[in-house]
Every structure is written in structure tokens, then in C-alpha cells.
């Protein structure tokens, strides 16, 4: 099946992300574009639903198949929802590669951050800083996107695990829909409640945490997730301790390389490619 497409001008590769809003996805796209232009002869297109929604992501997959895809690089919204659509896609001869987050359906390769592990790393960083201040107990607040996004839920869970067996109390997670202003309000409420540490599970949540700490004074320690200009400036000013920076460009770049290898029938190596996180602090910026 793939041969027919090839004749009419290279491989058709689609990148399908969760939505189109985050800088994160843009960086995945950039990486993929870079690899595509390096490799040449690839008809590459980025499809994304307007909002994060399983049904809409499935529609995107169906559309990509209808559009004659040879391969799909997918950032799955959740592990289960898309599996049947992927089965249909594979039935139509489409190769599947996961970037950022995988679904429960076998694929060529998964290139992702291990969100649970990264969440735990964030937790450990926070514990280390609190202990350094002599704080060994108290309340901890978590701000996340919503309870339906698998990746942030995994970060939240990893973060909570890091506190197992310690004297800290983890309060009910607050969901801000990724809205930095709402996260700021929620963080301020947490601070009023007397928390000693705060965790933001994505970019918007982290910005809110940082701003709330900046205003309340630095008695509370904040850690976050993702890298953006605003987050970096909050780290520089000491309002955030650190952030877990993912490498979305690597996901896109390496993902595209894997895709082309798979389409050419070459070996792609291990089925899991950890793109890693780096802990960014004031010191290593």
C-alpha cells in the first residue's frame, strides 16, 4: 500500500497532538519538521483538534487515514480512547509512532517523558529544599490542569508518591484548566491555608504558583513543570525552586527519524525512547 503513495511524492506523515495550544506541541512540530527537511521527500502535516477531547482526537486519526497517511505520529490524549481508531488505521496500512504519550496499542516506538518519574523527581526536589530549610512536616498543595488528562494525572501521582512515608499532608488537588490566572487564585488560597510547598503540574499551573509565591513572600517553596520564558524568569527571581523541563523537540525530531526508518523497513531499535527531563534551577540556567 505504501508503495503507491511513494510513487506520487514520498511518504505522507501526520503528527497528531492533543491540541494546538501549548508551546510544547509547537516544539514537537518543529523537531519533526526539522527532521523531515533533513531527510527530504516527506509530505508532513500537523493535525490537531481545537480543544483536548478524546472524540475529537479520534476524528483527527480518522481524517489522517482518510487523507492517505503512511504513518501517524501520535500524542495520545489517554491510553485507551484511541486504541480502536488505531486498530482501524493500522488495518489501512498506517504505521504508528507515539510521541509524548502512548496509548495501549502496540506501535513502532514511543518517544516520551516518563511523567510519573518526572513527577517524583519534582517531589524529591521539593522535599530536599524543605529539609534544607529544616521543614519536615506541613501541608503541600498541588495545582493541575484537570482530572481527565492522563499525563498530568501521572505527574501528580508521581509527585504524591515521593512523599510516601513522610510527615507532610498533601491537600486535595486543585484544577485550573491550565489557566494561569486561576492557578494564581488557587495558589493564593493554598498559601492562606498555610502550605509549605506548592507543585504546578503544567505550564499554566506553574506560572500561577510562581506568581502567588512572588506575591506572598518566599516562605513557600514552589516547583513546577515545563519550560517557558515566564517560568524561567520566575526561577531566576527565586520564586520557583525548579521546573521539570521536557524535550519536545527531541520527541519530534527523533520521532520523525524513527518513522522514516520504519517506513523504509529498517530497524528502529528499542520500543521505548526516553526523551528525558532536565531539572532546571537557578544554578543551572
Amino acid at each position, binding site marked *: 500500500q505504501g508503495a503507491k503513495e511513494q510513487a506520487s511524492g514520498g511518504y505522507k506523515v501526520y503528527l497528531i497532538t492533543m491540541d*494546538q*495550544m501549548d508551546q510544547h506541541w509547537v516544539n514537537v512540530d518543529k523537531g519533526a519538521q526539522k527532521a523531515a527537511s533533513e531527510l527530504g521527500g516527506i509530505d508532513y502535516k500537523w493535525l490537531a483538534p*481545537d480543544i483536548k*477531547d478524546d472524540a475529537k482526537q479520534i476524528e483527527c486519526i480518522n*481524517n489522517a487515514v482518510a487523507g492517505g497517511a503512511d504513518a501517524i505520529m501520535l500524542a495520545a490524549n*489517554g491510553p*485507551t480512547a484511541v486504541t480502536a481508531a488505531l486498530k482501524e488505521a493500522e488495518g489501512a496500512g498506517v504505521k504508528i509512532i507515539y510521541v509524548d504519550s502512548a496509548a495501549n496499542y502496540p506501535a513502532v516506538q514511543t518517544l516520551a517523558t516518563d511523567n510519573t518519574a518526572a513527577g517524583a523527581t519534582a517531589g524529591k526536589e521539593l522535599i530536599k529544599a524543605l529539609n534544607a530549610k529544616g521543614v519536615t512536616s506541613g501541608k503541600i498543595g498541588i495545582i493541575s490542569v484537570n482530572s481527565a488528562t492522563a499525563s498530568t494525572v501521572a505527574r501528580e501521582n508521581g509527585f504524591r508518591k515521593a512523599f510516601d512515608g513522610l510527615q507532610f499532608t498533601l491537600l486535595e488537588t486543585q484544577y485550573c484548566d491550565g489557566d494561569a490566572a486561576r492557578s494564581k487564585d488557587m495558589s493564593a488560597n493554598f498559601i492562606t491555608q498555610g502550605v509549605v510547598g506548592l507543585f504546578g503540574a503544567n505550564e499554566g499551573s506553574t506560572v500561577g504558583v510562581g506568581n502567588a509565591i512572588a506575591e506572598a513572600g518566599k516562605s513557600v517553596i514552589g516547583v513546577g513543570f515545563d519550560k517557558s520564558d515566564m517560568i524561567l524568569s520566575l526561577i531566576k527571581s527565586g520564586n520557583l525552586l525548579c521546573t521539570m523541563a521536557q524535550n519536545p523537540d527531541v520527541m519530534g525530531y527523533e520521532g520523525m527519524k524513527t518513522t522514516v526508518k520504519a517506513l523504509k523497513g529498517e530497524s528502529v531499535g528499542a520500543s521505548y525512547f526516553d526523551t528525558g527531563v532536565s531539572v532546571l534551577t537557578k544554578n543551572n540556567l
Partner: protein
Amino acid sequence: MERERRNPVKKVLAIRGIGQVLTVTVGLIVLYVVFGIMNPVFFSSRNIANLLRQIAPILLIGIGQSYVLITGNIDLSIGSVVGMSCMISATMMTKGANPIVAVIITMICCLAIGLANGLLVSFAKLPPFIATLGTMTIARGIAQIANNNYNTDSIGEAAQGFRDFFYYGKTMGLYNTIWIAAVLWIIFNFILNRTKSGRHIYAIGSNLEAARLSGVNVISATNKAYLVSAFVSCVVGLITSATSGMGTMDAGNSYELYAVAASVIGGVSTLGGQGLLFGTVIGASIWGVLQNGLQFAGAPVAIRNIVIGIIVVVSVLLDVIVRSGKGTRKKKATASM
């Protein structure tokens, strides 16, 4: 008093409110052709099947919203009921319930929300916007609490039949989802046009007081409209959980607005008393074609939003302009919400 019965064209043109339907049908055809020219894949039979399957849920919720709008009310809870239906059905199936039992219980829960809407609006006389804003929030809460604040796991192999029935299967070469939408459309169109209940739904939307004084049971007619709305939302929720094979708490977000858009583009008046389900089909199709076509055209979300917004406004504006050629009285009627 002409003999318009003879000529079928005249007969169609004599249907109340057909004007807007025809205007937007032309719009739909133009849109489709434009997208097809931009990207020939759009005309492929595979994409047409796909497109129809994407239009089906919008059509279904459009039917529900049209019923409610015709009574002169509005239903903001549609999206949340979709979410509730998706989560309740999936949660039960992951816990091993028989799909049929799960569907029945889900339906009961959704209809309860519909009944609550109807009673709050007609019996307790709350403004429908606020009553359904309340139930919208409550139903979303129920969707979230159904599986204890998590999306469900996979509904599993046992429910494959369920998934095929609502989404993946085909009957006579057409996806089941399309069949479901078509059959329900025929039924609800028949009820609206040919039964007493349908007549009463138009009557209360046109003039509540006059209908009441004529002995129409206003409460029961309002309830029926909201129950239809909850019913189709429930079906869409089931389609969603069949599509995903799991329950997602966010499912159906903003669907109430899509439903209003589909209805109103198709000529259903937000003032009540006026509208045809034929129009809703065209409205839903325009919505579907836009979403699908813009994605193929590779437009970024921002541009997509701007184009959709403009088309929503222009399609209704066109109708107003077309109608304004025909005297002022009707225009006045559409002036306020």
C-alpha cells in the same frame, strides 16, 4: 387561497420557515465544493463516510436543542449530559455490567436530568438559561464523580458489541452511527410535525399564555422537549464511550453551543415557535463540513475559529437580509433573543 397542493415545488416553498433552510443549503453546497477543490481527498468516499459519522452526533444534539428552542427555552446541559452518559456507561461496563443493562441505567440517569430541566423551567418557572446552567454544572459533577474523579479504564473486550453497535460497526455499508442519527431524526421529525405533542411544542414556544388558555398542558409539553434533548444527548454520550472505548469526564464539553449553532444556522428561532428539523440537518452538516474541511485545509486553530465565527454570523445574517425583502413584521419578531 391558491391550489398550492398540486405543484410539489410550491408545496415545499409553502412550508413555514423553509426560506432559511434553502439559503443555508446553498451555503452548504458552496462550502463543500470549495473545500473539495482545495483538497480533492475531501471528495473521496472514505472521507464522505467519515464526515457523515462526524456530523451524526452534532445532528443528534441539534435535534434535542431544536426541540427545546422551539418551545422558547434553551438547554445548556446538553454537553454535560453527554459527558455523564459517557462516564456512567463506561464505568458500569468496566465494572463488568452487561452493556444492555449499562445503557438502560445510563438512559434513566440522563432522562432524570431532562425531567429536572423540564420541571425547573415549566413548573418552578425558572429562567431556562439559569436552570440549565445549574443542571449543566451538576451533570458535569456527576460525570466526574461517576468513576471517582478519574477517566475510566478500557471498557474491555466484553463490550465490543456495544462499541460496534454505536460506532465501529456498519450496516448495509454505512456506519451504525449514521444509521442511529438517521433513524432518530425520522422519528423525532415525525413526532414534531405530525403529532399532538409536536404541535403543543410549537404552540407553547409561540405563545405560552395562549397555549395554556387553550388547555395545552404546558408542563408536560416542556418536559417532553427537555426529555428529547436529554435522550439524544445520552445517545451521543453512548456513541462517545463506544468511540473511545472508555469514559472521559470532559466528553461533550461545549456541545450545547454546537447544538445551538446547528439549530440556529438551520433556521430554528431562539425566540421559540419556529424551526424545522430539516434545517437542523443542514446546520449540523455545515458545522461538520467546516470542522473537517478546515482541518484538511491545514488551517491553524486560530484561523479555524475565526472562519467558523464568521460563517455562523454570515449564515444567519444572509437569512435576515433575504427575509428583509419581504416586509417588516417578521423582522421585528427576530429582533430580540
